[in-house]
């Protein structure tokens, strides 16, 4: 038996790996844009500035495209130039959003090439909305954790973030994170009284050498892309799969649709070749779409249009609203940050709600090595004074990325543009926030403020940034898994109810979206589908 898998992101590589391990053959079709090779992998972030011939071009780009100017989008950091390939578009893939700012990736490894490694299994309550037993997924959480390596601890977060097998010991804490956790332990009762729990973040990074990958050497270069693959990204697994028998990787192809016969059974995958040599049809009896929710949905809709002439709207698009809340830790003022530390979140936060499916999830990132200029310009002073103030508070600054859950609603949908002609149609994406969202954001951010105050921190008023929908890149819900026999849905095993021989192995089938980063669950679910 063989599979054609579309995409090379987190879902795709774990679907492929499980299928291979079950003795099946896999052809993985992908656009597969590649980034530059890592430079000076032995250097830390500050070393790069001294040792590179042209550090400005490396950090800001040849065209200075990574300079963040005033009047931008309110984000606290931009992506460095060497990550630009992750978000680079591709001809012919036209998305027209409304109320949504979609990020798409055609990179080898997909969007998770630029992720922060957060790997949080859904709780049993959160999996209650899925049409299969939580235990069905548990074994695949364990399997994926064993493959990629996830650090963390069995701590106060465990009721919200279940402990799976193979959890690796966490990395050493940076000083700021250490003080936050220490303060949490001494003020634990007061923080718990607010319904909050803190603990070590779960991160897909290796604390020591393992399976040919290097352990984290605290280079402080996570945002630039870990040069030694300690921080797992899908391209790490893809490279490993390329050496396995039964696996074939075909990059340079953008899948536009599937060919189906009169019984609506898949017969092939149609891809536009990026070298301009036209279309290629790859014969296939079983296809797993794992190109990401929006891309997979577009491929399905284009297939459906060709087969039926219809352009249905698929409701239920979900994404996590995120609010970025900067804070200042009084005890760290005047301290010097340690540039040789893990750069991303080392602490996570859970904020309980009456309904356990609605638990709020936060990632606490302390500011270590980072671009200074995007932060300095936000200080309401002249640049010179703002820089002086910033220098003294750099090590005291942190950011909580507060994630909100989402549910499927009819007024959030994707569909092909009905006005388009016979060619490939643009994908329309519409998103409307749920009723009462603004009040909930106010209520939650107020609670997070109280938690931070208990931790000895100050939250500057009016500095919180509500990110636009689409920014979290946790898209899901367009073709939900359900036990009900309905069109445009998938079975609990991820099989399409509309096209025989088609499975969905990415977020498109998630029936609910808890507040956590969904990537770990995407990987586990893709593996579950491949195993089934």
């Amino acid at each position, binding site marked *: 038996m063989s599979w054609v898998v579309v995409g090379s992101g987190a879902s795709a590589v774990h679907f492929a790996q499980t299928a291979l391990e079950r003795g099946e053959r896999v052809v993985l079709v992908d656009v597969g844009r590649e980034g530059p090779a890592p430079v000076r992998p032995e250097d830390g972030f500050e070393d790069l500035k001294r040792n590179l011939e042209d550090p400005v071009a490396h950090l800001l*780009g040849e065209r200075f495209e990574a300079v963040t100017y005033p009047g931008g989008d309110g984000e606290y950091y931009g992506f460095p130039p060497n990550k630009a390939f992750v978000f680079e578009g591709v001809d012919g893939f036209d998305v027209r959003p409304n109320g949504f700012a979609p990020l798409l990736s055609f990179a080898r490894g997909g969007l998770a090439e630029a992720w922060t490694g957060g790997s949080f299994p859904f709780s049993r309550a959160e999996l209650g909305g899925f049409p299969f037993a939580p235990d069905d997924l548990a074994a695949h959480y364990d399997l994926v954790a064993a493959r990629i390596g996830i650090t963390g601890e069995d701590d106060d977060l465990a009721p919200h973030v279940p402990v799976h097998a193979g959890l690796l010991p966490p990395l050493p804490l940076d000083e700021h994170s250490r003080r936050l956790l220490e303060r949490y332990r001494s003020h634990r009762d007061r923080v718990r009284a607010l319904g909050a729990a803190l603990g070590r973040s779960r991160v897909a990074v290796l604390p020591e050498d393992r399976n040919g990958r290097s352990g984290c050497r605290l280079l402080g270069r996570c945002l630039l892309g870990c040069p030694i693959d300690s921080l797992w990204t899908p391209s790490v697994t893809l490279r490993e799969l390329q050496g396995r028998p039964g696996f074939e990787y075909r990059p340079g192809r953008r899948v536009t649709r599937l060919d189906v016969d009169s019984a609506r059974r898949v017969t092939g995958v149609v891809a536009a070749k990026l070298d301009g040599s036209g279309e290629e049809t790859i014969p296939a009896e079983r296809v797993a779409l794992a190109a990401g929710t929006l891309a997979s949905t577009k491929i399905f809709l284009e297939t459906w249009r060709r087969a039926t002439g219809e352009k249905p709207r698929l409701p239920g698009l979900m994404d996590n609203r995120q609010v970025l809340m900067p804070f200042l830790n009084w005890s760290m003022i005047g301290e010097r940050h340690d540039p040789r530390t893990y750069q991303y979140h080392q602490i996570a936060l859970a904020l309980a709600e009456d309904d356990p499916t609605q638990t709020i999830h936060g990632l606490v990132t302390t500011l270590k090595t980072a671009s200074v200029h995007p932060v300095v310009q936000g200080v309401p002073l002249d640049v010179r004074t703002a820089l002086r103030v910033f220098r003294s508070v750099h090590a005291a600054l942190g950011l909580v990325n507060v994630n909100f859950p989402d549910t499927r609603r009819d007024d959030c949908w994707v569909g092909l543009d009905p006005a388009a002609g016979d060619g490939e149609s643009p994908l329309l994406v519409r998103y409307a926030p749920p009723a009462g969202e603004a009040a909930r954001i106010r209520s939650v951010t107020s609670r997070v403020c109280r938690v931070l105050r208990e931790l000895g921190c100050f939250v500057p008023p009016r500095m919180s940034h509500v990110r636009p929908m689409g920014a979290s890149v946790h898209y899901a819900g367009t073709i939900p898994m359900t036990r009900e026999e309905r069109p445009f849905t998938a079975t609990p095993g991820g099989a399409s109810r509309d096209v025989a021989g088609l499975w969905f192995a990415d977020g498109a089938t998630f029936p609910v979206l808890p507040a956590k980063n969904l990537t770990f669950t995407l990987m586990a679910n893709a593996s579950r589908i491949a195993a089934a």
Partner: protein
Amino acid sequence: MRLFLTGATGFVGRAFLRRLPADRFESVTALVRDPAKRPELAGLHSGVRLIPGDLTAFPAAAREAAAAADVVLHLAATTGKARAAEHERVIVDGTRALLEAVQESRPRFVHVSTIAATYPELDHYPYGRAKRDAEALVRASGLDWAILRPTIVFGPGSPVGRSLRSLASAPVLPRFGGGHARMHPVHVDDVAEVLVRLLAADPLGGRTIDFGGRDVVTFREFLERLRTAIGRGAGPAVSIPVRPLIGTLAALERVAGDALPVAAGQFYAFAHDGVAAVDAADSLVPPQAERRGVQEIVSELATPATPDSAFPDPAPADETLAREARLFTRHLIGREPPSSVMAKYSLAHAPGRHGPGGGDHDRLVLLARRGTFATRLADAWAAVFDRGGVLRRKLVLLLAILESTGETAAAVDTPDSGGAPTFFLRAARDGIVFVATLVFAAPFVWGSRRR
């Protein structure tokens, strides 16, 4: 057909020239105050002929070119905070001079006015008054004329767009007049399209066209949508009674002239509805449904400013950029920049780079170039009144280069010694110095504006 054009280098003029089909006119002649600063105009439409001068000092060459034209497009005007006498001189006297120059040759005459000319009172709005009076001159000219009155015009480089974006980005959203006044935002490309159509119409037939975009909204809704699009999220808002504000500013203007940072007239749009009547019968105007609406305009405004590719702000001379790099580095980190920093700073200003803008026309950049102390004054002023402006963009660019360069990175990011108490004492001192610098900067900034 020959076109004579005023206001070619302005916001609408540039959009018009971009949209004008290259073969529409056998010649295009533009009256430009300083052609040397706009060399790119010569590259358009087989060469736009540039004649230096302005309307109130109408050179003989310009008179001849205007008299030789088959059609005149009159866009030039003062904007913003100019004094009443300046509005009168440029808009009314300038229009009169242009009309006199073509009285014999009698070309078709397209005059671009403003929806503000329709406001029921213009007592404290000299710009609106001057536009209204200039319209009267055009109507009485005996020429074949058309008057276009756009509403508030948005698009890349829109001055009003930048102001409204600043308002929408503020920690507290100001609602002048409660934000109840209705606005009818129009995109500059739609205005340019109507101008192209008008110039093709013969005869013009003495028509006045009020022209807005697809949607009518209140200022409150527009600013809230813009705020959301920028990603600021809901925040507190404060209502500011607009008529008392206009009255107060008008009284202060009588005493302080144009020394105030804002003018009473700039708030008229918040006190009066600026909505264009729909004239479906006018075949020269694209149907309302086909024009850009609030959604497109807000989305574009929310996107960080991108350079105008057809009319890039020219890069300053190399020696000017070298002086900026030295002055600004001393200002930020108190030392001379290494040569690599100076080279990178200059390179970022070159065409095709994601640069900060040239700044040769920016009063704060011009002030900052005078010396270290002036840089300090201009930086403080920009922190409050021009946070997205060219000067701050230049300083942020330099900061990005300094922090990325091995030799200077430590100077950017090494904390001063001392814990929280020392920090707060320093912060208090810095805050006082900042406010004092701001106050001290005012006369220098206002002085530079008058020049």
